[in-house]
């Protein structure tokens, strides 16, 4: 099930939030959430729930062994077994076909492995369950003795499918006891509405406009840039919208999930961009890969290698294809450059230039992310960076821009940290002794309007007009 579906909005959400709010008993609440989460996951794809149950069971046992054994060797063995079994499922479902087919091609074999169907959310829940076992091993998180509550942590529906990746230590207390206050429900509802609006009103429409542009080989200079920017915006609003919905839903049922996006387009460097974009993934790789590898407290050469490993993994985590690996390494390379050769130059560079450069480099990066074949990446980059070799413009791009000026304007405006800016403005007013009486009404109205509009768009999307082709 996805948040931006009518089944979720009109049935699942009100029933689950209603039941969870009105039942005060902690274990019953957990049971409600567990059943709801399993149903949420099984909706449309019940078979792969087995993979999630298996990963949870393995890590539950491993964590118990880690907790109960004092022998360092056994503790380490249990940790390694838990991590390897969790990762092997991810490896099989996500990467096996890619690896086998590339090796097969390398050795001139015609054998090809079919891509197994990917269980939804496996990349997210695998990392979550790994954080649990590792944190128990490190002593950063308490052991969860009830396997059902551990399953609840793994399968918790708000963040199950698309994150944010929540560490067990972040929600351990809430698993046992949590308060659901009217304030939390209101805040959660507000965040959920904003996220839904980002997804349905901005990301989906950006996607529609993007679809109307020519294929990579036929792009003009203008449409090349437009396609890259639209894809960047679509990805941002889609993913950050989903994360915001997850955070809002979490608040409504008493959990406080970490922020996953923080207005990445205002960044002035690639490093800053990645501190603002998919924060939970960056945190995971920093805590569980980069620092164990030695981080930056190693020789220069080893540090570069560590960066290559971390960013290669970051790239390939997004999908089993060479373009994702290249995408990750591209950002890794830029960060290494920023911290070494360009360090002093960047200190002297005016802010707006740094800002512009960061945005342009991330847009170019998205070209690598979007196109799965190197030929298409080459074509789009050629159209963007070598305008003398392609047409300057084309009717598709002109029509797309002229037809959707408000969408583009809305996307630009919503890329700024509006919520923070508004909060700061209200705080200033308060400090000046002015009343913000309209603020709660404004937020309530904004939530209702955005949710209503999103609902209209979701219903409207079921319309299949074939405006011209049905005639």
């Amino acid at each position, binding site marked *: 099930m996805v948040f931006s579906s009518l089944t979720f909005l009109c049935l699942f959400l009100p029933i689950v939030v209603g039941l969870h709010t009105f039942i005060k008993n902690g274990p019953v609440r957990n049971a409600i959430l567990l059943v709801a989460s399993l149903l949420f996951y099984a909706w449309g794809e019940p078979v792969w729930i087995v993979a999630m149950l298996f990963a949870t069971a393995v890590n539950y046992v491993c964590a118990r062994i880690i907790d109960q054994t004092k022998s360092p060797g056994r503790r380490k063995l249990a940790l390694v077994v838990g991590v390897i079994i969790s990762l092997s499922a991810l490896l099989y479902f996500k990467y096996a076909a890619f690896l086998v087919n590339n090796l097969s091609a390398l050795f001139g074999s015609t054998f090809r492995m079919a891509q197994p169907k990917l269980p939804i959310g496996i990349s997210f829940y695998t990392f979550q369950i790994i954080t649990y076992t590792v944190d128990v091993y490190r002593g950063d998180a308490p052991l969860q003795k009830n396997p059902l509550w551990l399953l609840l942590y793994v399968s918790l529906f708000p963040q199950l499918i698309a994150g944010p990746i929540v560490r067990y230590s972040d929600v351990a207390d809430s698993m046992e006891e949590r308060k659901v206050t009217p304030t939390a429900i209101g805040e959660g*509802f507000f965040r959920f509405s904003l996220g839904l609006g980002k997804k349905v009103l901005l990301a989906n429409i950006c996607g529609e406009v993007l679809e109307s542009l020519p294929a990579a080989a036929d792009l003009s200079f203008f449409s090349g840039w437009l396609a890259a920017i639209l894809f960047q915006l679509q990805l941002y609003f889609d993913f950050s919208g989903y994360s915001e919905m997850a955070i809002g839903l979490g608040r409504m049922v008493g959990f406080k999930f970490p922020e996953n996006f923080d207005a990445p387009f205002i960044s002035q460097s690639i490093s800053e961009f990645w501190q603002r974009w998919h924060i939970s993934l960056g945190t995971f790789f920093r805590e569980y890969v980069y620092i164990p590898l030695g981080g930056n407290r190693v020789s220069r050469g080893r540090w570069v290698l560590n960066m290559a490993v971390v960013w290669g993994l970051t790239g390939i985590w997004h999908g089993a294809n060479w373009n994702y690996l290249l995408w990750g390494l591209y950002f890794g390379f830029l960060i290494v450059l920023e911290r070494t050769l360009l360090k002093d130059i960047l200190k002297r560079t005016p802010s707006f230039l740094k800002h512009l450069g960061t945005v342009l480099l991330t847009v170019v990066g998205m070209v690598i992310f979007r196109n799965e074949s190197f030929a298409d990446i080459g074509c789009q980059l050629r159209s963007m960076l070598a305008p003398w070799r392609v047409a300057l413009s084309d009717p598709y791009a002109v029509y797309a821009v002229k037809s959707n000026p408000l969408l583009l304007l809305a996307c630009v405006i919503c890329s700024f940290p509006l919520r923070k800016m508004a909060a700061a403005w209200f705080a200033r007013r308060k400090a000046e002794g002015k009343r913000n009486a309209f603020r*709660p009404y404004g937020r309530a109205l904004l939530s209702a309007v955005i949710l209503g509009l999103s609902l209209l768009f*979701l219903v409207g999307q079921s319309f299949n007009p074939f405006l011209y082709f*049905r005639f």
Partner: protein
Amino acid sequence: MAKKHRKKKNRILAVTAGAVLLLLLLIGVYELLLTSDEDAFSAQENRMLAQRPILSGKGFLYGTFTDGLEKYLADRFPGRAWIINFDRDLRQVGSLASWEDFAQVAEENVPDMAFVPETEDEDVVVTPRPTRTPAPTAEPTPEPTSTPEKTDATAAAAVETPKETPQPTATPAPTASPRPTKAAADVSSFPRELSSYLLDGKSRKQVTMKTRTEIYRLCSLFDAYASLLPEDGTFVMTIVPSSYRANKLLTFADPKAMTSEFEPFIHAVTANNVAAESTGDILFGPMMAGEYVFFRTDIHWTPWGAYKVMTKLMAHAGQTLPDYDAFPKEQEAPFLGTIYRNTRNKQLEKTPDTLDILSPRHPVTVRRYTGRDAYVEVPFIDKAADPQDRYTVYLGGPKAWTVVERADGGSIEKSCLVITDSFGLCTAPFLTEAYDRVILYDPRYYDKKAMGTLSEQIEAYNIKDIYLIVGELHAFDDSYFKLCSKQF
């Protein structure tokens, strides 16, 4: 006091959340339990709305139940028709796109939609039935590989033609045609790649292009249709340009600004009882002379334009039409069609169209079939048609199989089949003059399992003549004629 005030403010958002969630739940429960599960038809989309899915273990396991529920909730959402219109209007807010922008994009699209047959797709080539074969033809077996009297050009073309090129198979029949046979086709006079062109005064812009091989495939399909007709039966085809392209010709003030090589070629290489007319040739001259043959704000031809073309097409079948003014007529103005709806161009809004709503001169009954024997009776003029798309007043828009039958006991006892998209809708009043039964068939909505094959239908309805009247967007779309072949 301040704490109390803050608490009250905090509750506003929570109360809103509760109210909205409750409302959402009410909508969901209403849809699930209280909406009627009867068949519902969306006139806007020309499709049946989703039915309530039945919960079963298998359905849940394979996701069909969950998909079905989502579609059902969307399709049966309270006030959906209003929501859809609102959604469409909202998306147009702030649009700066002009008609010219849209026309340019549409034009760029046409070559992409060229009919590209897949050689492995055997069902594209339809072998004509040996029975009821029409008149004998001296040709057209173009490009025989060893004809001694071939010109050099023809021979060169023959060498270029792939061996697997499907040749039109005009099976000789023992009986003679009631009409004069066609002259032998001189295919060498046609280029290897057939095109339609738009001349902008300075340069010649290729609008559509197909190879001869592709056109041969279409011809074999047309021949197959024709072979099912009685000896005096005729298959007549035309491709109707979209109005935005036709209107663009006004800029050049040259009736020959658009030329097409398709129809003459089709006419030349098909069987004796297959005729092809170029709508462009018929209408562009009158259009330049100021006649109102294409809408400005809608993609279609006007009923007057359709009348002029039908006069020519029906002449091939030996039929004549009374004057246009003889048909009962109502006018609807202002009429803003689909081009306006898509672009919201202010200039178009200032120059709305007028829609002539013609009715047949004789009383008719109209049946819309959803199965071989399952039908509903509908009015010929659907005054309650989609207000956003008034062109669908004719028979409620395109449907899979619509039978218009004269209710005055007409003694003509002839049936015709119109293979069409929406362009054929307004031709029905004219055809009822010559046929007591007019059947409009749109392959896009046709269900072969429920209705039977088209060849069975042609036999069952005793069709005498077939008219193929298709807009250019479908004529050059790969899928439209593939559907025709598959449903044959």
